[in-house]
């Protein structure tokens, strides 16, 4: 029997190598209100304290709680608090590889698992856009 790994909750990850400094990439994602500029399909958002409400292109309003904005390790973490989710944690990590070489990792852990897949699918386009914006910054 092939040994199985433990998958009690859906946990997905996408990543992107970006030709920009880690600080530049981090600058794209670190502000909660910036998400409509780099997440395709999120057309607007409101931010009050640590609560962000995003509106998608299909008209869905999804509330989120900002959990972590840590510039020292360049990590942004948030939870979707919509009742459809029994659990969600989204984490964006920006990791320095070299001077103009970074890795941006967008992780989605959620229950129900199908919803994890839907959010994670969206993060693929988000990473592309983060890359585009970061690499457009000179210097």
């Amino acid at each position, binding site marked *: 029997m092939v040994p*199985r790994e433990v*998958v009690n909750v859906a946990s997905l990850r996408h990543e992107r190598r970006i030709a920009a400094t880690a600080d530049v990439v981090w600058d794209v994602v670190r502000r909660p209100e910036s998400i409509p500029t780099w997440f395709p*399909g999120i057309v607007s958002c409101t931010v009050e304290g640590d609560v962000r409400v995003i509106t998608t*292109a*299909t008209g869905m309003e999804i509330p989120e709680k900002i959990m972590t904005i840590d510039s020292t390790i360049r990590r942004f973490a948030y939870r979707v608090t919509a009742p459809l989710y029994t659990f969600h944690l989204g984490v964006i990590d920006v990791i320095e590889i070299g001077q103009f070489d970074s890795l941006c990792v967008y992780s989605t852990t959620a229950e129900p*698992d199908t919803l994890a897949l839907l959010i994670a*699918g969206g993060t*693929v386009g988000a990473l592309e856009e983060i890359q585009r914006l970061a690499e457009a910054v000179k210097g």
Partner: protein
Amino acid sequence: MGRRILFITTDQQRYDTLGVNGGQLSRTPVLDKLAAQGIRYERCQPTSVVCMPSRSSMLTGQFPSTHGAWMNGVPLAIDAPSVAENLHDAGYATALIGKAHFEPFMDPFGLYAENALANLGIPTIEQDWFDGRRGVHRGFDYLEFATHGVMGPLHYAKYMNEHHADAISGFYQVVDHSLNVNAAGGGDTGAPQVKFNPVPREWYHTDWVADRTIRWLEEQRDDRDWFCWMSFPDPHHPWDPPKSEIARVPWREVPLPVNYPESASEREALLDAKARHWREWYDGRVVSNYEAPAKWVPSTLTSDQVREVNALNAVEVELIDEAIGRVLKSIEAKGWGDDVDVIFTSDHGELQGDFGLLFKGPYHVDGLMRLPLIWRPALSTKPEPSVVRAPVSLVSLAATFLDVAGKPAPSWAEGAVLPSSDDEAKARSFDATFTEWDSSFFGIDVHVRTVVTEDYLYTEYLPGTMHDGSEGELYVLGDDPLQRVNRFDDPALASVRATLAEQLAGHEHRPGERATPGILMAPV
């Protein structure tokens, strides 16, 4: 003028559901007549046994490992080849009416053109900001979408919401609150994905697809060729046809399928002789893919549930046959009756009780892999009726459409034009078809490759989280048409197995450019 093309697909329809193919439950006189006038294929295989990869193969003429939409939820690349684009460029008016599903249906961020178009309520997209490189979406200059039930932003759902909102609650809810395929039971037997639907027949999606097709055809000019893909969402689950129609096939009178073992011990013995994931799914220990309800355990399926599902499926098949009949009459009324090639098939099959299972997954047997395929060439060409027993594949459709249009097969097409007789099939070496399965579903990876010849069905399970690469299945189709006796390890068939393995290896290493495999973006 050339030959017009009516391409009719259904979703999840078995070979043996048509009268002309020996089906006993449904009356399908329209399709039976088309078969009698043209070419009926006895062993047509899909490139994949789920919707998105299979439909993408119809459009691109490529295997999933080439076009890159390798499982449901992986979008076909927007710049993938499209036979509709070639036909459009050749001057054809091109339409797709019904279920497309080249892109994920679940789309909260509105990322995909199919959903966005329907959400905007527009059928024509000659706009720069919509895939402007082609001018039209995937080569179709007219699109109206439907899927199973009344879901999402698609055109059929908009129609129902605008005109018959009170009837929507009568449909089965295909997915549950967690967006998994719903396991809730209904009907008389509590079978999953079954419901008595009070919707009037004329509002049901089968008739809607036919109505919209007729409307589009009526708008076409006499001096222009057209290619119309009429794509019915049925008889895919849910099994919720209009209640007014279900008396056509009383489920209590439906015989059990020939491949449904009534005793649990027989079922389990058959499953145990196959690769391990069969039995693990049956027992509810593994859900390897999204396409069956995650919370439903196949071993709970009862004989009566199998009867009821098959009865409702048969009703849906009859409604489709009648809808096709209406469309063909409208074509006659336009005076085009002799000038239209009609091709009918389905994207994949349905287990429908075979081995005690329902729905679909990585199970490469006839229930999922043997498809109805009928090609009635334009009567003006005086087609010679025939039956082709050689294995053919849906991957051949794109080249066939272009051949009908008098155009050569493009370099990207991996399938050759369908043969019109067994003699032609032999002369052109139609001796094997290939079906692929790749899935990655929350830590469970399954990879399957199958070759079907006139005599054998041979499957290899590649290494993944369920299989270590040593398992497989080999069925001798002549002796074992129901694929019950797995002879993968039979020493008497060692040389046969080696030859078939070589054919599979040849498929894996075939020449040609492959698209980068797409990324899984949604469950479906």
